[in-house]
């Protein structure tokens, strides 16, 4: 290669590689300038709507030992109406249900709404759609416990499990009604606090 060609080749290569470097990290718009976002994100178990009936002694005796439960229940997971209102305008109104093909899995919610920055009145409601309540569960201390009854421990376990499950499930109605300041280019996150059994907001990484 002649000296001139070497120079041309080096310059051409430099231009190509610099273009490559520039294309490797080009600023591309992602979010609208100054926009804010309301983000809903939580996982919770929907309430189980059940109809239960106590089994008679005869029915229990007819069953194998491991199936002699006190109550027999049938039911389904509840569905909920989600309504998001910002300054009186309804931003979202939809039905949310448990995951999975038969809606029998926990409810996973992930929604995002663009909001103009500023102080806004946020009303977020999650209302159970099923009107009928489950058959009431007997209080724990009323579970029959005769001395010598082989099913006593089992009945107590059943009742305890059902109470825990009911406590872990979403309540029939959740409401977040508050005034929030949406900052430009920032996210306000609404999530479900399982311990307190209510919705709460978050603005930054607390971890």
């Amino acid at each position, binding site marked *: 290669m002649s000296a001139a060609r070497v120079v041309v080749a080096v310059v051409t290569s430099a231009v190509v590689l610099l273009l490559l470097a520039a294309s490797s990290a080009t600023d*591309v*718009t992602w979010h*609208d300038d100054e926009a804010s976002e309301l*983000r809903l994100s939580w996982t919770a178990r929907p309430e189980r709507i059940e109809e239960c009936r106590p089994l008679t002694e005869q029915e229990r005796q007819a069953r194998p030992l491991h199936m002699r439960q006190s109550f027999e229940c049938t039911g389904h997971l509840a569905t909920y109406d989600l309504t998001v209102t910002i300054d009186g305008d309804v931003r979202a109104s939809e039905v949310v249900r448990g995951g999975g093909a038969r809606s029998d899995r926990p409810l996973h919610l992930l929604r995002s709404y663009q909001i103009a920055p500023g102080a806004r009145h946020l009303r977020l409601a999650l209302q159970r759609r099923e009107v009928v309540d489950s058959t009431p569960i007997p209080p724990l201390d009323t579970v029959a416990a005769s001395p010598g009854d082989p099913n006593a421990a089992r009945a107590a376990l059943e009742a305890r499990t059902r109470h825990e499950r009911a406590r872990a499930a979403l309540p029939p109605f959740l409401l977040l009604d508050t005034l929030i300041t949406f900052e430009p280019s920032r996210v306000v996150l609404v999530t479900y606090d399982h311990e307190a059994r209510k919705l709460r907001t978050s603005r930054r*990484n607390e971890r």
Partner: protein
Amino acid sequence: MNATQERVSLTRALESPARAVVRLLDALANRVYGWRWNPVHQSGVLAVWLLIVLTVTGLYLLLFYRVGAPSASVARIAADPWLGSWVRSLHRYATDLFVIAAVLHALRLFAQARSWGPRRRAWASGVFLVGVGLVCAWTGFVMAWDTFGQRLAITGAALFDALPILSEPVGRIFAGDRAIPSAFFFINLFAHIALPLAMGAGLWLHVSKVARPVLTPPRRVKWWATAGLIAVSVLVPARLGPAADPFSLPGSTPLDLVTSAWVPVAERVPPLVTWSAALGFVSLMLLVPRLTRRRREGAWSPSYADPRHCTGCNQCPQDCPWEAITMVPRQDDRPTLLALVDPTLCVSCGICAGSCAPMGVGPPAITGREQLARLRAELVPAIGQRSAPIVVVCCAQTPVSIRKALGREGALVHEVSCVGNLHSSVVELSIRHGAGGVLIAGCPPRDCVGREGPKWLDQRLFHDREAELQARVDRRRVRVATFAPGCDAESMAAFVAFRSDIAAFEAPSAEARVELDVECDPVPLAVEDT
């Protein structure tokens, strides 16, 4: 127009503009770098070399990457001015160049009608390699967990969440209500390491039907490309965006246009539209061998070994770039083996025709006998009309501009589909009929459509490889050159120099009768009296 003709018309309509683009790129690159160091027509092997560069730099970066602190560890690497910064940048730029080289390679093969028939496995595996390479690139960007990595992850999660596979949206990982589990970054890292292993397997498949695959560029191209990438990596370190924050909405992010230009589009259209477009595109790419296939007739007829002429010398299997020829026992009473061509592997390059001394193998119309017949019909009369003209044998890829210039200079231009299928007897016949010299001009060796045409031609003409040019032919009157797009001046200079050299010799004498292809009956075996 019947269905076959319609398909052929569609094929040509697709390949013609691609060929024009490839020729233009070749011409420009040849003018700048010369055909010997043109990186454009070595795009395939350059992509492989870049994979090696990526592996070496990736192994270094792996030493310092922390799954538990992805953003911080990458920032520390980028902040190291001695090694980390430019090694990371080299890794990034090599990724982009790999994708560009691979796409150029695919475009070139498509334009040269090398995407169908026996090459369909190579094409399909190539589509797989590019696809896996892109996914590997995306996992690499996510590893850095800057705003670009976050954007890529969120967009990708939105696409997966549109599919009815997982009950919990993948996007919840990045919502901010809980810390991103380290398992996510670990799985991402695992994928980033495992996918190149899959690419290694894909590469093996890609060249599995090729004899003597060449996997890396010439040394000078290899090291100059690497040096150039290192230089730009040092001078222009790859940008690292701000650390990802799920509660922040950046107005813009640095985005890699080569691998991720689809991201801003995918953010604006429904996920199912993106999926449909992606699947449609991949399906179209996988259908290219079907869309571009031809009938195996005419110029695309596979080779055939004539049992009458085959002496079982085993040369054509050695020369075949596609391992399409095997030697099998004969069915007649001759003791030698017989060449057998597998038409499903034969790409009709005709290189076997140039390897056969008895002229017994080759595609129809390209066997040694057919070449001599064509020469007698077309060229010998023209030779006789001039005084010791120069015959220039050039391949079908020779630019029209060069052919016209040769004609203006008084050369007799004789075209073959590939110089690798030129039988040495054609050269001898031309000279013995009065040609002053024969200049055989092929494509650059690394750009030969037949893969090994120039290599075998040189061996047959000057190094006694079968079917060798006979010793009785004056080697001073035979020369090999390379005619490449954009190298018109260099090509004509080679012709003019050859013509000047020839002029210094005594004038050749034409023989009245030259018989190089007389057919003889096979000598019967002697039967022993017992």
